[in-house]
């Protein structure tokens, strides 16, 4: 395993040699965050895997690169990126019981993740700067910072913060454009024309991503499913239904 090169688990036949595994193995491999779950060895060569969360939480640019390989000559409809909520760097830095339990290197990794998440988003914004209503990112900005991945009993607060976020005027407007872009995509450029060679090595950061192209109803989804992403998708889907009625 080389931690710098991401392994992509695909549900379709790729051009390169696929990683042969079952659905549960893929799910396990993408959840093997160091210190949370032990690593898993899969495939013929018993290759070890750890979760990409430690360096590649935001796969936006990576999915564009994959789409370029598969459908480079086709037109791009839109790209929707869903975050798991803005982390509060200051609260991570606070010393206390938390730091005694979680090793310091994990804390610096978390800080790095937040920074790199936003960096990937900034990079995507630049690439789509001349293409209005093509790239959308949703990320609950307040309230999620105190909630850790393992705090299952706080799922209702996650939902409440998400609903609050969806009610905001600017988010509501963004959702209106997003739904319009998915329902009636207007291809402006082919994926190849978007030009995505630089900075690809620096991909880092947060979450689940849905890719919607004008020519295909099929969605490409990363296997990360964290609570916030799920509740946002649920809200979006309810919202889409409401608007299409």
């Amino acid at each position, binding site marked *: 395993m080389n931690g710098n090169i991401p392994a992509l688990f695909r549900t379709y036949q790729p051009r390169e040699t696929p990683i042969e595994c079952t*659905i549960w193995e893929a799910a396990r491999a993408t959840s093997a965050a160091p210190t949370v*779950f032990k*690593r898993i060895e899969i495939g013929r060569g018993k290759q070890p895997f750890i979760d990409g969360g430690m360096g590649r939480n935001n796969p936006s640019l990576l999915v564009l690169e994959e789409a370029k390989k598969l459908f480079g000559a086709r037109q791009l409809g839109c790209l929707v990126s869903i975050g798991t909520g803005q982390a509060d760097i200051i609260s991570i830095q606070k010393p206390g019981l938390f730091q005694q339990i979680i090793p310091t290197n994990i804390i610096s990794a978390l800080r790095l993740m937040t920074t790199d998440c936003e960096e990937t988003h900034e990079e995507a914004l630049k690439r789509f700067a001349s293409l209005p209503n093509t790239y959308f990112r949703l990320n609950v900005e307040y309230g999620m910072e105190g909630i850790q991945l393992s705090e*299952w009993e706080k799922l209702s607060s996650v939902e409440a913060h998400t609903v609050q976020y969806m009610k905001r005027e600017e988010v509501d407007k963004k959702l209106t454009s997003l739904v319009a872009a998915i329902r009636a995509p207007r291809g402006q450029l082919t994926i190849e024309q978007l030009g995505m060679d630089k900075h690809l090595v620096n991909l880092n950061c947060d979450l689940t991503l849905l890719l919607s192209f004008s020519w295909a109803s099929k969605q490409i989804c990363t296997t990360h499913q964290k609570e916030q992403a799920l509740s946002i998708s649920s809200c979006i*889907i309810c919202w889409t239904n409401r608007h299409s009625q």
Partner: protein
Amino acid sequence: MDVDKAIENYDDLTEKVFSDQKWWGDGKFKATKLEGVIKSAVKDVTGDSESPLVENEEAGFSRT
């Protein structure tokens, strides 16, 4: 699997997996417990907990 079912499964998964913390060994939570919950969710959808990741075009079910 639709979104409502996915949320329901996720709620179930987090409670089962994260309510039991390990005090020694590699990883803070039990990977075997996580594997068990994932396998049962896969079985619900495909009928076989060992279904391969690469989609069979004729299978006709959705994993999204």
